[in-house]
């Protein structure tokens, strides 16, 4: 429990009256620093937050229900739209869950490209986080530099998949298509220049007294509380708990990569900031290793009933054409069963639960979104702090409302 809440009056029923010293205000849903359409009901005593209640659901689109009406392969495009800053991570969680049900073996090259793209996406997601977090706290220019770096990554993603925000690049059983020619050269340009950008961010923020004063000892959550609230990802690691699914429960071959898991023990906004800043370097390390490991090979699993055939084969071979027709028109049957597959998304543990009754459409798809769970700990962190610190705390847990409301 944070120290600062101890001196506050005990919570009591709020009656809004002018004579009352407490005041209820509504922050959001159009507040720019709530990172989307999040509404917070804040009970304030002067400038301190007595009570904070998140109000969500403004972006609810019924995505999980929608999965039940779409064939398995069509579900991939829905996942893009949940956490729209980390669409490739969402793609991965979903396709891996379905692949688990099908028992598919994914070729080496596809796995490496998946790791590469997911880590690029993690950097892009952290770029948006850093830019907006700094913007909330009052550092305007960082935002431009962050979006410039993100633009470079989005160009790479666009070159590979054709989409910038909604790539849908991963398919059940592999990838949509192989990386384009010249991708590695462009990737190298990015990886060579990115460390300079990180230096710029460090100069602008990490060594900046103003930024430190705004973030240190703010929004404290102890390791025990962090675990109890179910925090995952950088928000948990900022409380000194070294849990990363890429290490704890490796998938797509993360066990073969050499990277560190940054952990900071101050439990405040500042240490969550440091964790993410250090993760940028680690992700870059993984990207470089993956790029060095790319060997020519197939990017689609050998499963003619599930994976679309190559276009050349489809035009020349009758059986490939028949499979193509069947997969597109009817979908493919997935064996009965239920699976849960967690991955380490940029914001924490993103788990995908898929239940199949057989047949080409899932019976139920559910996502354990990190933003949703991390947001639930916001009142715990924000109560007792100043109202101006609430925006810093929201920034530090890095939420995306598209994923919370789904």
């Amino acid at each position: 429990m944070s120290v600062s809440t101890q001196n506050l009056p005990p919570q009591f029923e709020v009656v809004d009256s002018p004579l009352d010293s407490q005041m209820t205000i509504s922050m959001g849903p159009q507040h720019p620093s709530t990172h989307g359409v999040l509404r917070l009901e804040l009970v304030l005593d002067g400038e301190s937050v007595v009570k904070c209640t998140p109000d969500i659901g403004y972006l609810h689109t019924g995505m999980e229900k929608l999965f039940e009406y779409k064939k398995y392969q069509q579900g991939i495009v829905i996942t893009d739209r949940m956490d729209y800053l980390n669409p490739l991570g969402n793609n991965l969680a979903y396709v891996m869950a379905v692949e688990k049900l099908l028992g598919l073996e994914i070729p080496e090259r596809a796995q490496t490209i998946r790791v590469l793209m997911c880590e690029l996406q993690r950097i892009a997601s952290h770029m948006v986080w850093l830019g907006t977090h700094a913007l909330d706290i009052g550092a305007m220019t960082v935002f431009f530099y962050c979006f410039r770096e993100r633009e470079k990554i989005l160009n790479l993603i666009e070159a590979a998949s054709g989409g910038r925000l909604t790539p849908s690049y991963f398919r059940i059983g592999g990838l949509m298509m192989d990386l384009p020619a010249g991708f590695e050269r462009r990737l190298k340009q990015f990886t060579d220049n990115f460390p300079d950008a990180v230096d710029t961010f460090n100069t602008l923020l990490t060594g900046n007294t103003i930024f430190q004063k705004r973030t240190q000892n703010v929004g404290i959550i102890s390791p025990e509380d962090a675990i109890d609230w179910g925090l995952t990802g950088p928000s948990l690691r900022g409380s000194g708990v070294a849990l990363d699914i890429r290490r704890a429960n490796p998938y797509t071959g993360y066990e073969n990569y050499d990277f560190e898991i940054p952990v900071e023990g101050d439990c405040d906004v500042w240490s969550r900031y440091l964790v993410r800043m250090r993760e940028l370097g680690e992700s870059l390390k993984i990207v470089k290793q993956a790029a060095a490991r790319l060997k020519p090979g197939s990017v689609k699993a050998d499963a003619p009933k599930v994976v679309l055939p190559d276009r050349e084969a489809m035009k020349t071979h009758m059986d490939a054409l028949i499979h193509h027709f069947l997969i597109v028109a009817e979908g493919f049957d997935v064996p009965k069963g239920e699976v849960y597959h967690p991955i380490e998304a940029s914001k924490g543990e993103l788990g995908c639960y898929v239940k199949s009754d057989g047949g080409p459409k899932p019976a139920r798809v559910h996502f354990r979104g990190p933003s949703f769970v991390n947001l639930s700990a916001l009142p715990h962190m924000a109560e007792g702090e100043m109202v101006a610190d609430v925006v810093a705390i929201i920034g530090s847990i890095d939420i995306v409302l598209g994923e919370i409301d789904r």
Partner: protein
Amino acid sequence: MSIISDIIDSTKAIIKGMSITLAQIPKEKWTVQYPDDPVTLQPRYRGQHLLHVDELGREKCVACFLCAAACPSDCIYIIADDDPRPEEERIGVDERYAKIYNIDYGRCIFCGYCVEACPKDAITHGYNFELSVYTRADLLKTKDDLLITKQKQSPNYRVAFSDEDVDSEYKEI
């Protein structure tokens, strides 16, 4: 004392920040002055669809409905018809062709599934991305807007083709 050191530290931080900002001025610009300057798109970019024709100008689509079946947002509407005329005079390459082929851009999510599904390479993604219109009904594009011979290409983009970047598998324009 601490106030004075705070002020000194903050001033230092601001000066450092300003020096970085000012150092950006001579550097390469990433902002594109759209629409005065064209936007650069990657070869695989998924823009407004194009319906292709063969060398004789006949539509490649054979109205097999695969694209409509693949579409996750159900936005393709096709009515198939038979064209009994001799081969050279036909509208399409095959006897069967799409009399009506509509894509509702109010629903399309530019996922590329239709392109992946088409066995005849009759539909691909073009690069037009300026799709805003004043009324919803105008978002429904018919063959008149989609056919490669009729679609007007916007001057506001250029495609990042280089000898090695051409992805001939999907893009034919």
